[in-house]
């Protein structure tokens, strides 16, 4: 008997899921500044949102994250260095500054925002402001 595993056991399923949302218009109304560096992925977890960006080679100390109202700003600089007297054979990595501001379609609770940076990945946890959370209405 064939055993089918949890969809998250297969990378391809996850990749296809990510591809699906590349054509999503979810942020067309909300997120401004699309197409700038760094590329972002936005995930939802319950009421809260998580923004993930790949920033290889950027030092934690060179990262600047700001949150105000619905707007999240990511700025920083990536550096690429070579020792003196080195002969360069290949040069594909890029260095430079970036500054991107995105507007989320939710009100963010600025005190609850958490930023984590590990292995070149920046994860921003954006909790939805209490006042912005949908209320369940009891149908009488």
């Amino acid at each position, binding site marked *: 008997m064939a055993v089918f595993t949890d969809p998250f056991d297969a990378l391809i399923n996850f*990749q296809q899921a990510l*591809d699906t949302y590349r054509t999503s218009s979810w942020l067309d109304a909300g997120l401004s500044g699309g197409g700038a560096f760094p590329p972002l992925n*936005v995930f939802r977890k319950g009421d809260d949102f998580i923004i993930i960006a790949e920033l290889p080679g950027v030092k934690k100390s060179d990262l600047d994250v700001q949150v105000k109202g619905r707007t999240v700003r990511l700025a920083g600089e990536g550096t690429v260095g070579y020792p003196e007297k080195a*002969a360069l054979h290949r040069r*594909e990595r890029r260095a430079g500054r970036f500054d991107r501001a995105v507007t989320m379609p939710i009100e963010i609770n600025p005190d609850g925002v958490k930023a984590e940076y590990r292995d070149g990945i920046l994860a921003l946890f954006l909790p939805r402001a209490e006042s912005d959370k949908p209320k369940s209405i009891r149908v009488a």
Partner: protein
Amino acid sequence: MVEKQELSVREKKELVAKEEKTIPGRYYIPYADIYETDDALAVVLEMPAVEKKDLKVALENDVLKVDGQIDFTKYKDLEPVYTEYNVGHYARSFTLSNKVDQEKISANLEDGVLTLTLPKAKHAQPRKIAIG
């Protein structure tokens, strides 16, 4: 001095390998810098999200193979709503034109950037010839 540049978005390059993988899933080609000093060759690869334990580096018959796996189970409870890039494992290989001292290869992974230092074998290092 070169003016500081603004970074721009680059689409990730998918790896097209001769051998297919048994487990489906896309691999990407990590961006690389390669430079050479008098005594070593350095290969610098951008592999964000790859942890040290999921990294494999092998050198066989002058071919350097690097394979980095990402742990996508971290995304398990997250529902994608908007995406601009895809994630995947990384793989790339290089045929080395230098003779390398295999025993002394060192690797350093920092902020998603892998730096491999491949010391050149003694006989491959430049030799100063004194002119008599």
